[in-house]
């Protein structure tokens, strides 16, 4: 055991030297762009996001690190003493299956949708009742068993027109008559500009995304703005690891691939030597942008590096960095193999 540890340390030292070289090169081309906010308004992402193979890729990329998924939650719930049990193999297998199922429930990805259209559906006009009341009447249908989005909310304006309530009003009424935990009537100040920036500086990405999920509907323009700001700052700071094996990693990758910004993501994955994940992201890229050139060249899917190279030549926008990263990666692999051979020869095998 000790031997392997020392080996790892040794590798890491080589590893860092290249890394440092690479990173210094990047800093020069650091774009000080303000976090540009682009919401999915050109093409509807929902069918793409919910399609079968995109979902499988995203789930595979998210990865299930049980320590992170089942970590201690700070939700003021009473703690229960840990339970230690002797288990047979079947029981253990059963428990692992349950944990698997529970983690897939916890890692359920928030849906990625287009911005919602405003509702302008007039039900009836009665100009004769203008003057009866100088305020609006909001009627909510509280029939049991209706999901929040399908609940009928109707507004009678002072000028007598009866119209269907807008999304904001409907959400407010739902919160009044059917409050959902974690949601507030007024959106928390966290989402205002200055507070959002200093929370993001502290790196509380998952907290911001979770509270955005709890507070807003997934197709709320406010929600889309906040999530894109968070994804941009994650991309800028390259700390994808924070969101890894949380429910937001899938939408993050989807957002980056949708807006063709996966260079940094690919580089950081390459540095962590997660070739499989890089290949998945490139495949995701090809699924989303069906018109991309690298799709034409038929590269056999399980050769990850070739797939990556194909992507780099054809579609990538910042090719030098990616090529550099690939070379660094290949160097490291070659050195490691070379090192192994030396060790083997040293041991006289």
């Amino acid at each position: 055991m000790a031997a392997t540890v020392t080996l790892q340390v040794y590798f890491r030292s080589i590893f860092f030297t290249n890394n440092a070289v690479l990173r210094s090169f990047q800093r020069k081309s650091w774009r000080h762009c303000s976090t540009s906010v682009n919401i999915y308004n050109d093409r509807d992402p929902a069918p793409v996001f919910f399609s079968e193979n995109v979902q499988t890729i995203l789930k595979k990329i998210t990865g299930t690190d049980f320590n992170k998924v089942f970590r201690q939650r700070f939700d003021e719930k009473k703690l229960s003493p840990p339970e230690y049990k002797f288990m047979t193999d079947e029981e253990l297998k059963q428990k692992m299956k349950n944990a698997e199922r529970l983690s897939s429930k916890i890692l359920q990805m928030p849906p990625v949708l287009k911005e919602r259209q405003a509702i302008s559906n007039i039900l009836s006009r009665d100009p004769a009742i203008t003057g009866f009341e100088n305020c609006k009447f909001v009627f909510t249908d509280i029939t049991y068993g209706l999901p929040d989005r399908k609940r009928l909310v109707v507004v009678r304006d002072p000028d007598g027109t009866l119209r269907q309530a807008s999304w904001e009003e409907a959400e407010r009424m739902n919160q009044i008559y059917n409050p959902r935990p974690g949601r507030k009537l007024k959106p928390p100040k966290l989402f205002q500009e200055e507070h959002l920036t200093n929370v993001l500086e502290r790196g509380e990405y998952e907290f911001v995304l979770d509270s955005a999920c709890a507070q807003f509907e997934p197709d709320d323009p406010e929600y889309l703005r906040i999530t894109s700001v968070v994804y941009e700052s994650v991309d800028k700071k390259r700390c994808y690891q924070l969101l890894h094996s949380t429910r937001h990693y899938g939408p993050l990758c989807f957002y980056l691939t949708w807006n063709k910004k996966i260079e940094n993501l690919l580089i950081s994955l390459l540095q962590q030597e997660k070739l499989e994940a890089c290949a998945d992201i490139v495949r995701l890229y090809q699924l989303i942008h069906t018109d991309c050139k690298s799709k034409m060249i038929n590269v056999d899917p399980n050769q990850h590096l070739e797939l990556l190279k194909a992507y780099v030549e054809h579609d990538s926008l910042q090719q030098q960095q990616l090529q550099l990263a690939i070379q660094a990666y290949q160097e490291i692999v070659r050195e490691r193999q070379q090192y192994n051979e030396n060790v083997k020869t040293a041991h006289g095998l």
Partner: protein
Amino acid sequence: MFRRLLCTFNTLSSHTATPTPLLRIIDANPVRCSLVTSTRLRCKASEEGEVQEERDPTKDRSRVIPVETSMKYIKSEAYHTTYGSDPVWKIYRRNFKGAFPPRKTRKTCIRAKMIATGNPCPICRDEYLVLDYRNVDLLKQFISEHNGAILSYSMTNICQRRHKELQVAVLKARDYGLLTYDVPFREYEYSEYYTPSKNDNKLTT
């Protein structure tokens, strides 16, 4: 009946705009209060002047300490020497009669801008500890690190008024995002947001 007479006399006198009422009802017993003579009142008014200076500075809490100084204080050396790395409420011994402490702590330690008790609660005793949503380091000491809940006053022994202030401050801090916690998990029902129509699947395979 007699009591009413006195009570009206009191309100009448207040009309004539003397700063302190000439006659004050001291106790409910009608007989004794009639003995209150004006001489006693006169000396009371004169005393008012000196009492002002005698206020004990350590117990005086009339000054309003801004939050910034409190935050600076918490990072300062003085704070570190007094409390070390322990939370503020650690070294405090609550005194109560009998073996079991009363369920609730006292209502407040500060009455009329003065510390009104010999053993003020951990926050009231230190003038520069201000409970405010920006003062995150202080708030963090009152939050359990196991499940993020606010520690109850039975553990931190702070008075009820301070506990209420603490709760308000923590909620505001969470609202502003200064204190992070785990938001309740939101389960999505995908069918509500997207109904996969047949032709969509063909598009993306």
